[in-house]
């Protein structure tokens, strides 16, 4: 049971800090860069133990790598594709058309959207959902597909699943453009509610990366998750009001829906874009759950991270 942790400490207490770490060595992890007298960084590697805190300082130091990993995935994705960014638009757009025909028209859901046209109603929900689904699917494979990096060079492994959100965010930005075109077409108008979008997006990123971190770590240890994840994404979509409005869920079961952070967030996105009443309580609950999911995901990831290079 080991673990590694980085702390920055000032010059003055570097000696006592090193001493502490020495005493700690058997019970606690430590990789400690500190300024020594010569101006060089001192790094201490000892076997750590237990659950370790997330090393935000180190992740911050590697922020450029996070950017480069996301940038690599985006570049690679659009190289050798004829339609390039059009795929980011087409995927949710075609899904929207299919849903409009089958669930809206044939399923009769288009009368339950509270007055909003069903296509734009379902599209506004599909965008954050597609972001979420793409992030967790690619994040779950991020470690396995980058196994050569993990066994060859050190960097915070967390960056690999985190970077997958970058690709999904670029896709999302492109499809937002289409949404605004649709809003113009349906004359829904833009209100101040739109200002809520960045906050909702931040929560969505947190929950998606949190789930992605858990799934990526599980996929390293248990390759079964390769098959579990697509199935999970499908089930999760039906447990989230993407196709249908949450109002069709009987009131006595609504509490269950609020446990699903994507439910509150997607309702929030719709409220923001389609100028509908914002249910603050559900947004607060979803944001809180997103935050907790991310912390759990990151902590679990840190806990199992140490085994990656041995088992991958």
């Amino acid at each position, binding site marked *: 049971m*080991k673990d590694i942790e980085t702390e920055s400490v000032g010059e003055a207490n570097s000696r006592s800090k090193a001493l502490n770490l020495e005493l700690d060595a058997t019970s606690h992890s430590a990789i400690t860069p500190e300024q020594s007298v010569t101006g060089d960084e001192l790094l201490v*590697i000892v076997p*750590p133990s237990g659950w370790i805190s997330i090393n935000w300082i180190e992740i911050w130091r590697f922020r450029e*790598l996070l950017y*480069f990993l996301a940038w690599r995935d985006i570049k690679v994705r659009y190289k050798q594709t004829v339609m390039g960014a059009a795929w980011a638009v087409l995927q949710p757009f075609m899904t929207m058309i299919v849903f409009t025909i089958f669930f809206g028209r044939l399923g009769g859901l288009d009368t339950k959207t509270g007055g909003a046209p069903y296509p734009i109603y379902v599209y506004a929900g599909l965008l954050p959902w597609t972001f979420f689904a793409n992030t967790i699917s690619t994040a779950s494979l991020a470690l396995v597909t980058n196994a050569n990096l993990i066994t*060859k060079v050190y960097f915070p492994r967390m960056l690999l699943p985190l970077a997958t959100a970058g690709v999904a965010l670029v896709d999302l930005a492109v499809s937002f453009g289409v949404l605004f075109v649709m809003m113009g077409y349906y004359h829904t108008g833009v209100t101040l509610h739109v200002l809520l979008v960045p906050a909702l997006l931040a929560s969505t990123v947190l929950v998606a990366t949190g789930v992605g971190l858990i799934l990526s770590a599980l996929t390293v240890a248990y390759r079964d998750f390769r098959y579990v994840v697509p199935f999970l994404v499908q089930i999760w979509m039906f447990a989230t009001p993407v196709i249908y409005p949450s109002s069709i869920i009987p009131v006595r079961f609504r509490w269950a829906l609020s446990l699903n952070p994507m439910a509150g967030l997607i309702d929030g996105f719709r409220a923001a874009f389609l100028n509908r009443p914002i249910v603050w309580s559900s947004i607060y609950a979803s944001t809180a759950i997103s935050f907790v999911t991310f912390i759990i995901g990151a902590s679990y990831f840190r806990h199992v991270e140490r085994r990656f290079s*041995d088992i991958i």
Partner: protein
Amino acid sequence: MSTPAIRVSNLSKQFQIGSLASRFDYYTLREVIVNRLSAPFHRSTDRASQKSNIWALKDINFEVPRGQVVGIIGHNGAGKSTLLKVLSRIAEPTTGRIELRGRLASLLEVGTGFHPELSGRENVFLSAAISGMSRSETTRRFDEIVAFAEVDKFIDMPVKRYSTGMYMRLAFAVAAHQQPDILIIDEVLSVGDAAFQKKCLGKMEQVGSSGRTVLFVSHNMGMVNALCDRAILLKAGQVIEDGDTSSVIRRYVQTLETHDGIDGELYLPEEPNLAIQITCARLLDSEGNPCSRFDVMSPIRLEVTLNVRQAIPGLLAAFAVYKNGETVFASWDTDTQPDRLHVRSTGINKEIVTIPAPLIKAGRYQLKFWTAVANVRVVHNPAVLLPFDIVEDTIDASLLSYAGREAGYLALPLDWVHAGTGVSTAD
């Protein structure tokens, strides 16, 4: 300046045999569930299978002063790579403590993080970012990197279209242009053509002389000898010798010589996925009997058995004669038989090479064998050496040109021709 750049104390690393024997194996959920159900109270599988753990590193202690270039040598599986992985934080130690002073970079494999679809330029930035270089630093050194790699014209082409040489040069250039205080290098120079290797070696020497601390793992003793101030010999995860490079190399070479079989014979296991491999090498005396002791005046017949499994152009076999870890000379079978570069008959091939006499002086030598695809890659590079002795049985001990006690490796009878008497040097 007195504080060491690297201090390793009581470092050990344990692997579970299961995870070591099958590195690319993984658990399936079913196994875990079945295990849990069948033994629900065995919470820790580690404890239950304590006996099946092995120590890849056991109680390693050493210090490296700033600016020293240290070679880490040992057989395959001695723990060299594990040590480097623990030092570069890829794997975690089981017990012990490491102190590193200054920025560390590891060159465990050139081209780490290269993506075939991306252009050379993009890969330079990506690979640099992965090894911890900032974007501004990479931008600053970009021209230098491209110039070193000699790929200027192709820098915006995807690296999947690069030749192997170009790819390796670019990958090495990125790695070599980092400015770490401590540099860890694992066998990176075993690839590429001779010109590239020479260039890398030059760069490495420059790195070594610029006051940087370097840990260098290699099976190439000549390179270790040329680059390192000191060497550490690992065996079964333990340091068995640490000190002056040439004496550690001598000790290493001794451990390599211990092989099964009759003196003068070397048998290597079949490795069915190799395109060409050496299966047997024998040193024969004038009667054709295996022998490992030759007079300085008697020629040595070397019989090499090659198993050629694929008819790839450019296959070659070679051997080198070593003394004290340095190459005395080497010989390639395609130099005198260039047709072999194009066609080589598959199956078991026997080759005979005669090492003429007198050529090498008395002393202990080792033969090293390898096969390769010309200018592309090494195919078979067994670590084990075939030792033999040259003795002065028939020669008059007063003949100094042949005498093992005099410096030099070659016993060459050169003619001294009288060109006159009483002639002034000015003429």
